[in-house]
């Protein structure tokens, strides 16, 4: 068992003061901090192996290609893809979803078809579908969310029909932390023949995910939310579906041969990786996967659940603090409001105490509307947080109430 201090020691950014107070980073749902091993992997890539990949015979290029492809294999193993080729490197979860929207949905959908999402989606899992609807004439259906922040299963079921061509939902909500029953939802969707997309941006940094077991068609991953670098993420897709799909962008590396008369696409996954990819980003993500494997999802989840229940207790004990969407099955996210104190002011005052939380609509405006709010405060945890962090959060909120409440 690794100690709290040992884990926290691996994250250099945590060891700094903000305005004289030790930083308490509670914004991991926006992006996680990076362990030293990830930073070192990037540095080492640039200092030793930096080269372009796939087409080079020289040593650096071979090393870079191997590191990049090894990272693909690491991700495939982590999320239980059936082969490395099912993992496509993209910029992040947003690009993964747009790739599906433009590469799979746009050429296939038409007037009368329906796309089903939920009320708790991140804008990245709403807007790409709105764009596809606009482009194809399909329409967007939205399953309701219960008062406790869980998905309204009846609403979800009642919206599934013969017309539902695609179903897309968050594995874990970024705004309130709800964990959706991915496998169950995919089974329901499949009964009506719909293609399934799971937005796993908030999942893979926190809990074991198995793509093959969930049995969805596509799974979107965000590297920077799972201890990896910015600018890298993955679309995991069933091989047969990826094969059928048109490419996403045109350019180098995604083609077999090019002539002005005819161009032949390369194989999956290269067909979807036009141009020089974020090589160092993939290498860093590979290191992040190693980090997760080393710590273990078991440790990560246990720690986060501990922090969550501790956090709920601390916040509930403060007069005027209200938890938003605190469902049973919840990841390490505390969404809350403070009576008479606007979230934006809470954010500023907490920052002044060295406590970093996020405030606003969390790119989930429709969910905010669902709760009749324009904004909330959000404290989100990762394995490097401690119960002292929660205490600091509680004290800082009380300070905010003192100043403005």
């Amino acid at each position, binding site marked *: 068992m690794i100690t709290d201090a040992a884990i926290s020691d691996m994250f250099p950014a945590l060891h700094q003061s903000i305005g004289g107070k030790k930083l308490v980073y509670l914004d991991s749902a926006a992006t996680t901090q990076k362990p030293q091993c990830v930073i070192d992997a990037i540095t080492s890539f640039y200092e030793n192996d930096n080269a372009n990949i796939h087409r080079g015979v020289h040593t650096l290029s071979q090393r870079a290609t191997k590191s990049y492809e090894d990272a693909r294999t690491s991700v495939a193993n982590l999320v239980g893809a059936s082969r490395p080729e099912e993992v496509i490197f993209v910029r992040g979860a947003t690009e993964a979803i747009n790739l599906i929207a433009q590469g799979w949905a746009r050429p296939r959908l038409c007037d009368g078809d329906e796309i089903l999402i939920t009320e708790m989606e991140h804008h990245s899992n709403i807007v790409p579908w709105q764009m596809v609807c606009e482009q194809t004439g399909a329409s967007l259906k939205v399953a309701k969310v219960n008062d406790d922040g869980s998905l309204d299963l009846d609403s979800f079921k009642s919206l599934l029909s013969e017309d539902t061509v695609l179903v897309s939902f968050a594995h874990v909500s970024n705004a309130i932390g709800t964990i959706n029953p991915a496998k169950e939802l995919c089974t329901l969707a499949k009964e009506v023949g719909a293609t399934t997309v799971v937005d796993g941006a908030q999942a893979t940094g926190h809990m074991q995910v198995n793509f093959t077991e969930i049995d969805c068609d596509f799974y979107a991953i965000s590297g920077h939310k799972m201890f990896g670098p910015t600018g890298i993420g993955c679309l995991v897709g069933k091989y047969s579906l990826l094969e059928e799909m048109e490419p996403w962008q045109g350019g180098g590396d995604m083609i077999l041969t090019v002539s002005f008369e005819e161009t032949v696409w390369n194989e999956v996954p290269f067909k979807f990786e036009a141009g020089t990819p974020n090589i160092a980003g993939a290498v860093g993500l590979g290191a992040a996967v190693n980090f997760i494997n080393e710590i273990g999802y078991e440790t990560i989840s246990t720690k986060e659940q501990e922090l969550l229940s501790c956090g709920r207790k601390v916040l509930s004990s403060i007069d005027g603090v209200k938890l938003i969407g605190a469902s049973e099955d919840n990841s390490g996210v505390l969404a809350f409001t403070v009576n008479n104190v606007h*979230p934006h*002011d809470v954010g*500023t005052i907490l920052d002044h105490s060295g406590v970093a939380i996020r405030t*606003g609509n969390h790119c989930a*405006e429709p969910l905010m509307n669902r709760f009749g709010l324009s904004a909330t405060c959000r404290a989100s945890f990762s394995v490097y947080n401690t119960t002292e962090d929660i205490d600091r959060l509680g004290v800082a909120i009380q300070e905010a109430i003192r100043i403005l409440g």
Partner: protein
Amino acid sequence: MSDLRELYLEMVTDHAKNPRKRGKVDACTHIGTGHNPLCGDKIVVTIAAENGVINDIKFDGEGCAISTASADLMAEILIGKTIDEAKILFNGFHGLLTDDSQPTEVPRKLAVFSGVREFPMRVKCATLAWHTLISALENDGEATTE
């Protein structure tokens, strides 16, 4: 790091908690809506003006302490001013918050926001009402601080 007390001066928190000019102006001649996507705030500014003079002005909508207090104090200070004077005040206020190269002369009620300059993420909160005012006066009706 700058002092939080510079941001939340008593006059600011007082107007934030008890805004005097919240509501809608009757017989309104100008209306503008503003939006700060950063905090989700939306604001509606209504103005009753005659012969280029602002007879009454109010704001509506929820916002953070800084944006509420700023809207409230803006409304108080603009009553009786001409539209041209209002624009000059806006420029002064904007300069106060963003330009530390030259000292800007502004009325005391606006000067309480000088602390905001040290909190760059909050400048948009303090100026939202003013941007909305300008768009109302220029009649395009929509403002955003992003």
